Every structure is written in structure tokens, then in C-alpha cells.
């Protein structure tokens, strides 16, 4: 039990700290410090797994870290730590604009700590039941993030988010139970929910139940990941949450749902049903990419734009799951998370300057705040997968793999969608950057707001230009 506590002690501490009525700067700084130390601590804890010294680090039965889980845990913690450190800057400006919202910010920090805790669990779950509980926990914890601004719009977005995701997740629970039932129908088996146990006995699982369970889980966790027909909550939630919240939702939460899908597809794969385990995610991924790139065209809100771009990237990552390429899966998720976090944080700054989320209200950012404008342009390139960023390398790898396996239809659709989204995003971003700024625009100090996004962009640039990441994530 104490090894479990080890994992969540620091986030718990952060949650406690954020509720105390201290000097805002102090408690916010403290929370971000705790998150960074959690990141460092996770590296220390997971080092043997990451370096491949041991395959699985079991903390308690049902909670274990394998390599991909460890990598995702690190990525999630990194995203949360970055976003929350940036939040110090963000909320400082916010409270200048709208004083007296200290209480709301405290709740925001509190829920962010809980969210980090739940997401860490998602990465380490070796039990489908715990996985479900953790993912539903992320929904509940992040509802407060979306609700932060307490406006009518945020209320609507939170309600949709909570209801749609809860129902989706309910279906995932149904799927989980079906898989559990399938393990009980195997010959002389007691039934298990442990992922490793299920993989070990996979060929003996009852296929019809397993198939049904996988489809339900895919739909359920797919709702949480925002795949195409079930995505309706995602743009609302991402655009209504404050910028650090959107960054965590997009950079952390989506990965968790995708990781759950990956785990399930691995179970079905080891049961020997390749068609089911791979084709279904692949088709859903391609569909999401195509749909999202079309939706991108007619977006008017800058954060909704990035939200649809997230849906597109989720589709791409699903394709990686569908190709059974774990390394590529992580690489895509990594680059997407880094670039998307950066771009959400920057958009938050720009929205604070311009006082509006609408693209047609944002003009002349280059004249008003040149550093952010440059960064926005660069990170938009990084998000859309332009060379030389990491996203380009990983998407290139994905396309190459598709071509290798002969999925030319996937290659064609992905290329089309990626080209379209590149054009659309460039168009929207250029509309924001050029032009003359309106006189109502505020001036904010730029350098502190640009520090973390810049770091992230540099790291995704590094991921693209060096072969380091590929070596790091070479998974068995």
C-alpha cells in the first residue's frame, strides 16, 4: 500500500496546498514545484523500467508500470507540470482583469492535482476495472477545469462533457464486464480483470464476448478520446476551459483514453484476432482524421480550432494503434502533446491580450506581441506536422508503415486530410498574426508567458531533428 502512496503522495500534497488560503503566488508556485518534483521522482522511480532493466515494475497487485505506461506517465506529468507552471502567469493576468476569483483558482489547482493523480493511475493500471475507475476519475476531476470561468458557456460545456463522457464511459464499463465474463467462460478459469493475466490466457477467452467487450470499450474510451462521431463534447470543453486546463485536457487526458484503447487492443491482439484488434481502430482513426480536417475549415474560435486539431491527432494516433506500432504510438502522442500544450498556452496568452476567442477579433498579434506571434506560428507548424518538428517525423513514420503494410487507402486519406488541415490552420493563424491590432488590446509582459511554450517547442524540434526519441522509445 505504501508503494501506492509513493505514487500519489506529491499530488495529494499539491491538492492540500492548493486548498489552503495562502498567498496566491506562494501556493501556486508551491504546487508547480511539487508537480516538477513529482516528474523528477517518477523518473527516479521508473528508471529501471525505462532503461529496460526490468520489464514490469509492480507497485501493488493491479498497479504496475511497464515501459509504455511509464513513458506516458512521464509525458502526462510533464504536460501537467508545464501547464500548471504557466498557470501562475496566466492566472496572475486573469486576476488583474477580474479580481476576486481566488477561490475559483484554488479549486482549479485542487482539481488539477486530482486530475494528475487519476491520470497517473490510468498509466499504471494493470487491471481493467481500476483502469475504468481511474478514467472516470479523470472525467470527474477535470469537470471543474472546464467549469472554471463560471459563465453560461462554460456551464453548457461542462454539462455536455460530464454527461457525454459519463455515458460513454458507462459503455466502457459494460465492455469491461463483457471481457471479464469472457475470461470466466474460458476453460477452467476463475476470471480475471488483470491486463497481464488476460493477455496470458488470451487465446482461451470466449471470442464472442471478447469481441463485444472490445467494441464497447472502444466506443466508450473512444468517446473520452474524442473520436469522430462521439467528439461533440471535445471542442466545447477544450475551448471553454482556461488555457492551462485546455492544455491538460488535450495533452494529458486524450493520451490516457488512447492508452486504454491501446491496452485493450493488445489483449485482443494476443487472443489472435488481428482483424478486430487493429482494423477497427484503424478505420475509426482514419474517419476521425478526415472528419476533423473538414471541421477545421469552418471554425471561428481559435481554441476550437486547436480542439479539432486534437481530434485529428487522436485519429492519427489511433491509426498507429491500428498498425500495432507501440513506438510510433508513443512518439505521435509525445509530439502532439508537447506541441498542443504549447499552442494552447500561447493561445491563452493571446486571448488574454485580445479579450476574445474569436479568430476574427484577433488581429495583428505580430505588431502587438511579436514573441508570442512568432511562437504561435512555429507551434502551429509543429502541430500540423510540418518539418522539421517531431510530429512530421512521426507522421512520416506512420505513413511509411502504412505503405509498407499496403494500406494505400489510409495513406491517401491521411495525406489529404493532413494537407487540408495544414492549409486551413496556416490560413487561420496568418489571419491572427497579420493586420493591425485593435486599440482595446492590452499589453502583457511577453517573456514569462513564452518561456514554457518555447521549451516545449524546442523539445518537439529536438524530437524531430535528432533520432534520440526513436531510440528512446524502441519498445520490444
Amino acid at each position, binding site marked *: 500500500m505504501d508503494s501506492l502512496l509513493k505514487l500519489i503522495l506529491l499530488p495529494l500534497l499539491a491538492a492540500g496546498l492548493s486548498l489552503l488560503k495562502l498567498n496566491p503566488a506562494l501556493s501556486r508556485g508551491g504546487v508547480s514545484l511539487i508537480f516538477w518534483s513529482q516528474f523528477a521522482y517518477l523518473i527516479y522511480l521508473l528508471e529501471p523500467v525505462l532503461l529496460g532493466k526490468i520489464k514490469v515494475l509492480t507497485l501493488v497487485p493491479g498497479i504496475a508500470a511497464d515501459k509504455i505506461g511509464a513513458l506516458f506517465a512521464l509525458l502526462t506529468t510533464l504536460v501537467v507540470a508545464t501547464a500548471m507552471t504557466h498557470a501562475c502567469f496566466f492566472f496572475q493576468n486573469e486576476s488583474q482583469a477580474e479580481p476576486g476569483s481566488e477561490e475559483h483558482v484554488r479549486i482549479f489547482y485542487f482539481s488539477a492535482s486530482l486530475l494528475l493523480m487519476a491520470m497517473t493511475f490510468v498509466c499504471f493500471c494493470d487491471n481493467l*476495472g481500476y483502469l475504468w475507475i481511474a478514467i472516470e476519475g479523470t*472525467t470527474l476531476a477535470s469537470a471543474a477545469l472546464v467549469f472554471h470561468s463560471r459563465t453560461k458557456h462554460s456551464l453548457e460545456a461542462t454539462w455536455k462533457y460530464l454527461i457525454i463522457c459519463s455515458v460513454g464511459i458507462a459503455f466502457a464499463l459494460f465492455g469491461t464486464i463483457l471481457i*471479464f465474463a469472457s475470461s470466466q467462460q474460458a476453460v477452467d478459469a476463475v476470471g480475471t480483470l488483470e491486463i497481464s493475466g488476460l493477455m496470458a490466457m488470451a487465446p482461451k477467452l470466449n471470442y464472442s464476448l471478447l469481441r463485444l467487450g472490445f467494441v464497447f470499450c472502444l466506443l466508450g474510451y473512444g468517446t473520452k478520446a474524442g473520436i469522430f462521431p462521439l467528439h461533440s463534447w471535445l471542442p466545447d470543453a477544450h475551448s471553454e476551459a482556461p488555457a492551462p486546463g485546455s492544455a491538460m485536457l488535450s495533452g494529458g487526458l486524450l493520451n490516457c483514453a488512447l492508452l486504454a484503447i491501446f491496452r485493450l487492443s493488445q489483449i485482443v491482439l494476443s487472443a489472435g484476432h488481428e482483424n478486430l484488434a487493429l482494423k477497427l481502430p484503424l478505420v475509426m482513426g482514419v474517419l476521425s482524421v478526415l472528419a476533423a480536417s473538414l471541421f477545421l475549415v469552418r471554425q471561428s474560435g481559435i481554441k476550437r480550432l486547436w480542439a479539432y486539431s486534437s481530434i485529428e491527432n487522436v485519429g492519427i494516433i489511433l491509426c498507429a494503434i491500428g498498425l500495432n506500432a507501440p513506438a510510433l504510438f508513443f512518439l505521435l502522442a509525445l509530439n502532439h502533446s508537447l506541441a498542443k500544450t504549447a499552442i494552447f498556452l500561447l493561445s491563452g496568452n493571446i486571448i488574454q491580450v485580445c479579450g476574445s476567442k474569436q479568430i476574427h477579433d484577433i488581429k495583428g498579434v505580430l505588431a502587438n506581441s511579436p514573441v508570442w506571434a512568432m511562437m504561435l506560428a512555429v507551434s502551429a507548424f509543429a502541430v500540423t506536422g510540418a518539418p522539421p518538428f517531431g510530429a512530421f517525423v512521426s507522421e512520416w513514420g506512420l505513413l511509411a508503415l502504412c505503405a509498407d503494410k499496403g494500406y494505400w487507402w489510409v495513406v491517401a486519406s491521411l495525406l489529404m486530410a493532413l494537407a487540408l488541415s495544414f492549409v486551413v490552420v496556416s490560413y487561420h493563424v496568418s489571419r491572427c498574426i497579420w493586420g493591425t491590432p485593435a486599440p482595446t488590446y492590452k499589453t502583457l509582459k511577453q517573456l514569462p508567458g513564452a518561456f514554457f511554450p518555447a521549451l516545449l517547442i524546442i523539445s518537439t524540434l529536438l524530437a524531430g531533428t535528432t533520432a534520440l526519441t526513436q531510440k528512446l522509445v524502441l519498445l520490444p
Partner: protein
Amino acid sequence: MNLDLIELVSIAAALSAILMAGSTHLSMNIALYSLQTFLLSLATYSLAGLRAESHFIWVALAIVVLKALGIPLFLHWIMVKIGVNSDPGTTLAPPLAMHCCVLLMGLSYFLAQSLPSSSLEGHSWANATAAISLLLSGLILMLTRRIALSQIIGFLVIENGIYLFALTQTSGMPLVVEMGVLLDVLVGVMISGLLVFRIQRSFEHIDVTQLTELRD
């Protein structure tokens, strides 16, 4: 082919869900939900004896206290506070929704037939039918209602259906998982209940079909 107690109880629960789809009174729906949950805990309790699994007794107790009493009282409190007591329904009128649910119960019978059988105590087509029918009725309830509270109730009915399925079609989820799910549901209901208050305060109604300001 006589039915045993568990099967009768679970079918009664499924019937209560069907009646919920037809009733426009929120207090009626809350009461029916409470009854339904109570029936499920009864089924859990009797399965505890049949399968000699003592942890089912604790689960049954937790369900009675938290889900059959706690949640309905909470929802009722919200209902009284907000002063909304009926839900006229959306496109599909409640009576028709009820007919849909009856037909879906028939459909669930066929779905239940297609599930592989096992020798577990309590595993039967009747229980599977009841569980799937509960799930589908909850879905109908969520789709055809316009008041936020009804949507919460619909979600809870879906959850009940899933619970009944887990109870009868498997040997029961491990206690930790069961309690974790229960906790999540409780917290979810609490949060959405608080949101309902907020919606009432900001919009002066809790009609979720009118929450359409955010769109592409």
C-alpha cells in the same frame, strides 16, 4: 421453466425502468429508481447466499444505503430546491418512449439469447434480458428527456443495468472494483447535481435541450 427469486426481482427492476420512461413526474421517477436499486440489492443479497460469497452482502448493503437511499434523497432535495417537478419530454412523447422500451425489452431477449451460457448461479436468459433492457431503457430515458435531472436519472438507470449484468453474467466484480465504481458514480451524481443548481441559477431553467449556444 419457472423463474427463481433473482430472476423475478431483476425483471421487476427492468419493468420499473420501463415505467420510468413513461412517467413525466420527476418524483415518481426518483421513487421508481430507488425501488429499482433496492430490488437489485435484494438480488445481490440472495446471490450472496447462493454463491457463498460473503462480500456480496457488503455490496448489497452499500447499494441500499448509498444508491437506493442516498442518491434518491439527494436528487429529491435538488428537485424540491429547484422547484421543477415534471419533465414533458422531447421529440418522443413519454408514452411512446415507454412503448419503445417495451419493444427494446423484446430485443434484449434476443440479445440475451445470443450470449454464451455458463454454469454460474444466477446466470440465465431472464437476468441477461433484464440487465440489457435496463441499459436500453436508461438510454431511452436519457435521449427523450429534456430536464437535466432526468438525464442524471437516466444515467443511473444505465449504471444499474450494467451492475445487474456484472452481477448475474459474471461471478461478480472484485470488491475493490465494485466499490470504486460506486464511488465514481456517487461523485459523478454529486458533481452533476451541483451543476444542475448552477444551470438553474444561470439560465433560470434546467432544460438541457436549450443548451445550444456552443456550436460550430
